[in-house]
């Protein structure tokens, strides 16, 4: 069976009702943002479900609080001046205050120190991110206008299918469709065949494009890279065991008319469930190939995915030649 597909990661309208009024929102949201301990709550980054996404979230919050600290000092000084030194209150300007080398050196050095404090953890994270070694599963992801192709390697070799926006979203998103997007489940964030990956496994994505530049983006994995035609970008993620579920993102690089309509959906399953899924896919490929003994490439995978529409026809490999 498929993994639990409850859409806990990006619930609809989670922040309805409890929002401070727009004016107060600035301060209040800044404070409450830190208190929330789950993936995106509607106004902050998702904490995510990988070690990397948590590290990135922490760095984001560190940078945020440093900025809040600086803002309190600087805005405080400005507001104090605005209140205290008003001509209407009889304030007299101190026109001898022209410059102060000591003060100016201080407010050059202090920011440098703050920047170094921020840069060190950031640099460490970059090193971790770029470490592609020891992956357990590689998947080649290819962007097309306007869908994604997922080709498995390693244990999943031979599995190859397209992932496109689900039909109900596609109908509702047409101009003057008359369909209320609120009535469509996971509007614009659901596909016919999600990418299926195992949890607790280092998955390496080999990313490219067949036409224009796209970007593969899953907020809960803190993962975003451009898919560039003719070039390959590598990235990796490892979803925590126990965090199986469906994670949703979108294309994040303007790629033409339907840029807003090529979601990225990742179905994370336990390694056992993933193994089962791979076997089912391979059995189907064999079955589809049997009558003609053609090379794999006309299979219809993803039949297991919840609420699947009619299977997509996979493109022959020749269609994937780069440019």
């Amino acid at each position, binding site marked *: 069976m498929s993994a639990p597909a409850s859409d806990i990661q990006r619930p609809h309208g989670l922040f309805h009702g409890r929002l401070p009024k727009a004016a107060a929102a600035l301060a209040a949201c800044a404070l409450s943002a830190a208190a929330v301990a789950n993936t995106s709550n509607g*106004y902050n980054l998702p904490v995510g479900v990988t070690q990397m996404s948590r590290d990135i979230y922490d760095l984001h919050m560190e940078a945020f609080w440093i900025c809040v600290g600086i803002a309190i000092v600087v805005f405080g000084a*400005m507001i104090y001046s605005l209140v205290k030194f008003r001509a209407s209150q009889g304030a007299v300007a101190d026109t001898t205050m022209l410059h102060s080398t000591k003060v100016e050196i201080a407010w050059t050095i202090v920011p440098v120190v703050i920047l170094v404090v921020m840069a060190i953890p950031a640099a460490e994270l970059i090193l971790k991110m770029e470490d592609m070694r020891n992956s357990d599963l590689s998947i080649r992801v290819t962007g097309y206008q306007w869908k994604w192709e997922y080709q498995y390697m390693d244990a999943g070799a031979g599995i190859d299918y397209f992932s496109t926006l689900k039909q109900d979203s596609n109908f509702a998103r047409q101009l003057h469709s008359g369909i209320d997007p609120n009535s469509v489940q996971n*509007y614009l964030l659901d596909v016919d065949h999600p990418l299926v990956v195992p949890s607790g496994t280092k998955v390496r994505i080999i990313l490219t494009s067949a036409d224009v530049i796209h970007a593969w983006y899953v907020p809960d994995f803190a993962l975003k890279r451009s898919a560039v035609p003719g070039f390959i970008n590598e990235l990796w993620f490892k979803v925590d065991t126990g965090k199986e579920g469906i994670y949703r993102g979108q294309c994040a690089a303007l790629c033409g008319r339907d840029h807003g309509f090529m979601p990225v959906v990742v179905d994370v399953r336990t390694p056992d469930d993933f193994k089962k899924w791979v076997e089912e896919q391979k059995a189907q490929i064999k079955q589809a190939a049997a009558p003609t003994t053609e090379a794999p490439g006309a299979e219809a995978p993803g039949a297991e995915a919840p609420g699947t529409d009619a299977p997509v026809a996979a493109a022959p490999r020749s269609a994937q030649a780069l440019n």
Partner: protein
Amino acid sequence: MAQDLAHDTAHDSHDDHNHAPTGIKRWLFSTNHKDIGTMYLVFSLIMFFIGGAMAMVIRAELFKPGLQIVDPERFNQMTTMHALIMIFGAVMPSFVGLANWMVPLQIGAPDMALPRMNNLSFWILPFAFTILLSTLLMPGGAPAAGWTMYPPLVLQSGDSMPMLIFAVHLMGASSIMGAINIVVTIMNMRAPGMNLLKMPLFCWSWLITAYLLIAVMPVLAGAVTMLLTDHFFGTSFFNAGGGGDPLMFEHVFWFFGHPEVYIMILPAFGIISEILPTFSRKPLFGATSMIYAIASIAFLSFIVWGHHMFVDGMPMAAQLFFMMSTMLIAVPTGVKVFNWTATMWRGSLSFEPPMLFAIAFLFLFSIGGFSGLMLALTPVDFQYNNTYFVVAHFHYVLVPGAIFAVMGAVYYWLPKWTGHMYNMTLAKTHFWCSAIFVNVLFFPQHFLGLAGMPRRIPDYAVQFTDWNMVSSIGGFAFGASQILFVILIVQCVRGGQKATDAVWDGALPTGLEWTLSSPPPFHSFTVAPEIK
């Protein structure tokens, strides 16, 4: 259209003792820095409203999920054209207009050094933008690949692409001529005794900006020309199939694009450095370090372009380099903000409209600076990149940053230009509406971006509805508020209480422009003033 409005806003022709042509010829053949400055400013105001109308279409479409008004292709045209028009049509010409008006007045010169080129550099613009805007009516529509024009997507454009490229070439030529004119004027026409360090900060900021323009506009021209040959002449600069590299375009583009960002903010720094001391009744704190800060920012702007491209794939060493060089920009920018704060400290503050805009600039530009610092951190940028967080960031530095500075400058010098005071109540209403609604418009976009809404999408998942509605309401209100600005300017041009030479008598206006009559004589300083 520019012509008609230019007539409306022309200052009194009280000083036509010098055989200047009248009527339409006065404007078409003008070699006068003030008339050309006026034309630049009116042109940029018109473009501000055209680009703003496109923003209204964008915000109306994004008011709720589902497509209601435009199809996705038209939406992409709107975002692309909005950016091109606001950057090249509104912000940049408004700064050139201010430079035209104020540089000769502030350095004690009779006019710009190269008046005929001045005329040419302005009159190119209406043609460039007519070409650009005409693509909206063409089959296939306007450019829709984003103002960044990334290939291969932009190569899929129809006839709009050569039109766009020709328009960009024209705008670039205009900018380079304007920049050369400003450099030559500042270098050669300063009043005797005005050495560079005595020069007003606005002129300083423009001098450095002009060098940035001369350095990078040819780079943009080269990049778009390579697009043109890729599309029409079978070259493969950016085509991987022919041995090219799509990312090379991004590198070349952002080598132009990042200094371009500072081209749009350095003159604003100059303006704020003029307004704050006047209404704090206290000289600018650390004026020399302000100049060094601008110069450092300008230098750093050439070595940070890679931060626009972290997600596009970059060697680890490059990621580290661009992260650190970008973070370094926070230091001179911080120095500027601290110096402005110190200028107000122990001053004697009053809150005339220019001062209100300058104070709003200080707060809101700083917010844009904070989000910029966060964006510089490469690992987190993988989350922020191409989401509404970026949209919020650059709109914070461009709208309450650059555009508020331009509005502050207009409120500061309009009485000098027209000889009339304007309606203070209307100006303050315009300020408060703008300052409040700009935050309603852009602050929620931080939340949208962090929650994962990509930019440049015409439709969105339903969990993004609430903040988009708030943002759209703020957008409509901000747009409507700008009508007050036009009413005020038209009223002020038509008449009003006579402005004195110093205009802001109660405050502390310093600088040569306040020694001339309001409005200044046709040839500004016919006798160079002596600077002690």
